[in-house]
């Protein structure tokens, strides 16, 4: 009797792992099998756990990332040892740079063979050390529940980030007991969540003193779910708000206090407001170089308040006068609670400053040649923004497509823009869109792509076709690596070295070959109908939208310039002569 009970309580490491994942509430795993994971995939099969087979491990990592960014839950991906694991690396780095909670499992050769250059061995813990929040090498089946529990806790708390769990084959095959600790207790990991009350008061006194304040809000607002608190805070104090790329959606894009994105391709209004401000309230942002431009010239007369959950983000790139370390939502809540004074009072005090801010918006609004007979990408994005519902999730690739979306799409809800901001990973948008669609099967999900980027993970058409998930891909097709071409045009005398994609495939046919609907838009008059058709289609769609090949992203703060030193377009005369040269 004893004997039998003991036997039934013993489970394989693979079974223990599946159970641990279920207890964490994992709904779906994105992954790709291989030799050392056979036991895991067998246990998964028997448990009936949902797994999405991507066609490349990189896509599995991005899908887990997209799932996490859209839902706020932890995304899970899985790859086999060696090449499977190394294929995850770009996805893990992408999640790391943008603080996304992902747990990545990698197979590993049996423990006794580690270090011996075994077949398909890679030191993935070592390789991913600088791009993970933490990592584990499992050494016994019995410790898997604790490791998984800790990994999910670490990935999703404090400043979120990816955690890698390396699974040697013998750990998956070995036997052990399932035991999950009651709670997570990690003595070296206690993220600070509540802001220091004294510092919070100092923020208010800075606001009292300031004449020209501005709020610079980043991805931290979205991550901590502080959208509502931010609106209340900005409205109460009548302070204009600019967003980083990852912050978009964290403040409603149609709000009268909204200035648009700031930085290299930010609006004139946002950049001028930052430049002329005397107080910057940075919230969940990190003064990235794409935001500040030349640090020495950044906001020369501003004092800086910085609210962030990560102490190491503070005073990293620029000097901060009033740091507040804590969860952004909690800190904003506290600020809103203790601050006295009426909106009306602030309105009076701020009116001069807000008039100036408004004037910058009117002086140089975002603009493009609306009369052109060619399809302007900005027009496509404006139309998409108009046609898609408010809760549509938009992902982007990297390059001009990404910046046009940031400039022209009106995001009004948090977690509706998923974009690789930190690492700038081409090939991110499509798999991330898949991940988001698995999190929200009923919502509209659109990947706005470039013709270069989409080809980095185009194989995932097989995945969307297999599951018939209705992801829409809108390719802004300029037959160029557009963003790089733009820099060559501006700074390298239009020598288009290795940026012309002259032998692109017929994307409609590619889609059809995978059994996916393809739509071509080659005339401006077809844009609206084409997008409508795509959005109305119940399955996946690829829209090949053939845009003005040489359209650029403006305004632009050239590298090394102050954010007030923007350029608004190419030198017309120079441009024409160059076009001739190309032809």
């Amino acid at each position, binding site marked *: 009797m004893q004997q039998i009970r003991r036997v039934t309580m013993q489970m394989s490491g693979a079974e223990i792992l599946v159970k641990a994942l279920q207890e964490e509430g994992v709904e779906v795993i994105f992954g790709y099998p291989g030799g050392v994971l056979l036991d895991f995939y067998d246990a998964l099969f028997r448990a009936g756990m949902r797994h999405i087979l991507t066609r490349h491990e990189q896509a599995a990592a991005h899908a887990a990332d997209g799932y996490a960014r859209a839902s706020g839950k932890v995304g899970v991906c899985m790859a086999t040892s060696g090449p499977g694991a190394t294929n995850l690396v770009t996805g893990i780095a992408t999640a790391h740079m943008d603080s996304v909670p992902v747990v990545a499992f990698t197979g590993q050769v049996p423990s006794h063979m580690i270090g011996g250059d075994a077949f398909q061995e890679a030191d993935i*813990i*070592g390789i991913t*050390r*600088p791009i993970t*929040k*933490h*990592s584990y*090498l499992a050494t016994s089946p019995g410790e898997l529940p604790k490791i998984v529990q800790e990994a999910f806790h*670490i990935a999703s708390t404090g400043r979120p980030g990816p955690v890698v769990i390396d699974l040697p084959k013998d750990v998956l095959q070995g036997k052990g007991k399932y035991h999950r600790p009651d709670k997570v207790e*990690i*003595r*070296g*990991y206690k993220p600070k969540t509540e802001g220091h009350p004294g510092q919070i008061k100092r923020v208010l006194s800075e606001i009292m003193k300031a004449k020209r304040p501005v709020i610079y809000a980043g991805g931290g607002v979205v991550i901590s779910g502080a959208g509502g608190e931010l609106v209340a805070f900005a409205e109460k104090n009548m302070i204009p708000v600019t967003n980083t790329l990852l912050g978009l959606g964290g403040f409603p894009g149609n709000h009268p206090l909204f200035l648009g994105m700031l930085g290299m391709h930010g609006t004139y209004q946002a950049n001028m407001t930052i430049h002329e401000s005397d107080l910057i309230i940075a919230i969940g942002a990190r003064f990235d170089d794409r935001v500040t431009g030349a640090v020495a010239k950044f906001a020369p007369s501003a004092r800086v308040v910085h609210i962030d959950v*990560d*102490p*190491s983000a503070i*005073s*990293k790139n620029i000097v901060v006068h009033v740091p507040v370390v804590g969860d952004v939502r909690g800190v904003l809540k506290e600020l809103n609670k203790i601050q006295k004074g009426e909106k009306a009072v602030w309105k009076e005090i701020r009116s001069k400053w807000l008039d100036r801010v408004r004037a910058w918006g009117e002086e140089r609004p975002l603009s493009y040649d609306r009369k052109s007979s060619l399809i302007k990408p900005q027009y496509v994005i404006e139309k998409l923004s108009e046609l898609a519902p408010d809760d549509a999730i938009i992902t982007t690739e990297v390059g001009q497509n990404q910046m046009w979306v940031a400039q022209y799409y009106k995001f009004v809800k948090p977690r509706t823009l998923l974009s690789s901001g930190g690492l700038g990973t081409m090939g991110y948008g499509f798999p991330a869109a898949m991940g988001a669609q698995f999190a929200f099967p009923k919502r509209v999900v659109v990947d706005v792509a470039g013709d270069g980027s989409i080809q980095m993970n185009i194989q995932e058409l097989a995945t969307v076709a297999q599951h018939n998930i209705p992801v829409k891909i809108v390719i802004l097709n300029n037959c160029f690596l557009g963003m790089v071409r733009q820099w060559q045009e501006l700074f390298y005398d239009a020598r288009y070295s290795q940026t012309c994609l002259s032998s692109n495939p017929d994307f409609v046919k590619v889609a059809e070959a995978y059994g996916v609907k393809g739509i071509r838009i080659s005339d401006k008059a077809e844009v609206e109908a084409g997008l409508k058709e795509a959005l109305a289609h119940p399955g996946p769609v690829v829209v090949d939208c053939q845009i003005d090949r040489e359209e650029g992203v403006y305004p632009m703060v050239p590298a090394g310039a102050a954010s007030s030193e923007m350029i608004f377009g190419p030198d017309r005369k120079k441009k024409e002569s160059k076009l001739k040269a190309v032809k």
Partner: protein
Amino acid sequence: MRHTITITVENKFGVLSRVAGLFSGRGFNIESLSVGETLDPTISRMTIVTRGDDRIIEQVTKQLRKLVDVIKVTDLTDSSFVDREMILVKISATEKNKAEILRINEIFRGKIVDVSPTTYTFEITGDEGKIEAFIKLIKPFGVKEISRTGKVAILREMNGE
């Protein structure tokens, strides 16, 4: 500026490379590093001596604190602390210089830990000044080999004030 940082960490494999990686990833050098178990065998203590301007050091200590396996980080530099290092030095000895070498060792209160017909090996413990002075004096006699532990450090107790 020179900084002496002590860190208590989980006594697990891989922790040392995480800590070292933070330094190398930012392109600066660790002058010395020593690791050893504490009374609690699940915790190790590291003493790191490094150089960098205040901003870099502040970043590094913040990044160290972010490591999940790091329990506590203390930059001793601005506090009162005791540090010690131990070296083992093997010196060529001849009939002629033997007496002189032994005399220097005695002055520094070193121990003789190994003797051969042609060499002495001394063990010297002390702060940096003492160690450097010893090396300087003994060098001309012909140092065959030298092995240093790197510094270990501990805060001074201020309760008695």
